[in-house]
């Protein structure tokens, strides 16, 4: 579904991604790990179309379409979803209006009628249950005054509503206590089907105990320097990143 070839991207003239190659197929769970500053979050921002980043080279196709030509909203409509590392607070925009606007924009994209008020509320109720999100949060402004755990659960709730084909979870485990982590991970697992795929970006093995990856990549200095099975994550947990850094830096 996703094909990344030799992707280079820069912010303010500084190149962060220096030739990423990655293929994701339906049903797969990929983990992208790596030390701080290696470009993990940049990759997720570039894929979802953050305007601050410029793609300088390479191509990305999503179900055959040139992803880089699509606006951020159309990427969402095509089935790409990013669970933000730092979900944004939007004072004054209620969760309900936010989700209604998002959902109806997608329906419009596929020439469907907007959902009726009762169908919409029913859908919200169903999806909230997946991550045990409190009803009272729905009437509040988007992420405003939410705890760290609530923000992350809210991300997965939005994912449940929008039913993406490819979800990128950017450090969804950061700032979560162990119970919240379990709820979030269980939510992600419930949404898993053989037709969708997930990219989990994380520093730690911890999240991968709950969301089992098929393939683990290590990102370092803007490139994927190592790809292996789930055992790689365990090895990283034990040995840290230094041995990989040495391997890469010595190879030069």
């Amino acid at each position: 579904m996703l094909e990344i070839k030799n992707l280079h991207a820069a912010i303010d003239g500084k190149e962060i991604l220096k030739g990423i190659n990655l293929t994701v197929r339906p049903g797969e769970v990929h983990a992208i790990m790596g030390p701080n500053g290696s470009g993990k979050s940049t990759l997720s921002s570039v894929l979802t179309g953050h305007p601050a980043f410029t793609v300088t080279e390479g191509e990305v196709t999503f179900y055959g379409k040139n992803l880089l030509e699509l606006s951020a909203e159309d990427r969402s409509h095509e089935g790409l979803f990013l669970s933000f590392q730092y979900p944004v607070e939007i004072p004054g925009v209620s969760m309900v209006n936010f989700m209604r606007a998002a959902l109806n924009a997608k329906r419009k994209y596929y020439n469907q009628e907007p959902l009726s008020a009762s169908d919409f509320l029913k859908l919200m109720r169903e999806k909230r249950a997946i991550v045990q999100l409190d009803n009272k949060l729905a009437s509040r402004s988007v992420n405003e005054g939410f705890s760290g755990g609530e923000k992350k659960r809210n991300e997965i709730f939005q994912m449940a509503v929008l039913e993406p084909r490819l979800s990128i979870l950017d450090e969804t485990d950061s700032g979560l206590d162990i119970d919240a982590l379990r709820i979030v991970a269980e939510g992600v697992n419930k949404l898993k089907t053989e037709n969708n795929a997930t990219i989990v970006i994380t520093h730690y093995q911890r999240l991968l105990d709950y969301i089992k990856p098929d393939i683990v990549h290590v990102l370092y200095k803007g490139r994927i320097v190592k790809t292996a099975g789930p055992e790689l994550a365990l090895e990283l947990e034990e040995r840290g990143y230094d041995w990989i850094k040495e391997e890469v830096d010595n190879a030069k």
Partner: protein
Amino acid sequence: MTAINQYIELFKATREAIDAHSAGALNALRPKALEALEGARMPVKGDEDYEVTDLEEVYAPDYGVNVNRIDLGVNPAEAFHCDVPNLSTCLYFLANDAFFAARNSDKNLPEGVIVKSLRRAAVENADIVEKYYGQIASLDCRPTALNTLLAQDGLLLYVPKGVVVEKPIQLVNILNSATPLMAVRRLLIVLEDDAQARMLVCDHTQNKQTDYLNTQVVEIFAGKRAVFDYYDIEDSSDSTHRVSNIYIRQQEASNLMVDGITLTNGFTRNNYVVDLDGDRTELHLLGMAMASGRRHVDNHTAVNHRHKYGTTSELFKYVLDDQAVGSFSGLIKVFPGADKTEAYQSNKNVCASPEARMYSKPQLIIDCDDVKCSHGSSIGQIDQNALFYMQSRGIPEHEARLMLMQAFMNDVIAGVRLESLKDRLRHLVETHILGGSSSCQDCAGACPTTKKD
């Protein structure tokens, strides 16, 4: 020749007619107004508190004034009655500046409450009008002096001691003329001790091709422990110039909400002058402006704390798009002896386009030690992170921007104390922002005035 001169000449030439079609206290004050205006000019750009606004220019065109009170064929009271279920009000009209009451508008008023034509009141309730008219409207302010020179009618609201008016009183100001017209409107509002009322004022322009100069002077007297809400909504047209001067005197422990809302306009200058004339007064001064195109919105506020334990919370917010220009200058002055004053002033603005301009001057002068005060101002753009977050959820950029602009106004709307108006305002801001069109049908007042259009 200054802009004022042409109106002085008009006054001198038509003085008999002006007096004949007005009465009592209104006529009695004209000589003083004339004195204040002779040799004077309107404020020009660069004068104190007129950083971006030139009233000399605004008053320069030769607007007609309906001194002979000719029926311009606008009688809203006969044509319309307000039957909106969720905003039931006692409804009155000023068509240009002539007073009309809607049918049955008085039937819900408690005994002793007076809402009537100011001209009529100057005869029938001369004691009230003489006691209050012109007492706080400063003739040093030229637009106020000119209004005083020419005003022939308007509205008196009088609420006797201890009387609570449950139903909101709604005044709809309609501009409708085939030729350029200056409306000279005068409101006198008196709440005696312990009285309570709420008033909603909506400005509408019907004949949108005509140039208007829409002037008003409002005097509000709040007695001890009186509670009064005053909502002033402008939904006019590109060719409407509005110059509004609102003067307020609050006595001990009175509680006022004053909220000025500019939805659609051409050129607008609103002055608010508040004297807190007793201990433990409470003032909420709110303002909100949304302007696009080449519109101009300028709000000026002056709040004087002269006594102890007074509180003021002041918040003005603007969203400016296209080449719109906004200005805010606000002064809170705490006089010696006004101990335990709490006064907060805030002006927050969004310039949604690179060419929109906002000028902000928040001021605080404190001549007293034991106070809590703050003032601040911010001018920013739409939050890019929030915008991207919304887009990444599939909300198109255009819609996301509009939702964020609307969200920005949320805390001003939340401050409104009239529940039904709050809901309507939310709806109105939404449709206004999304559609960009002005329609009285969507107006907060929701009076069906546009049926005549």
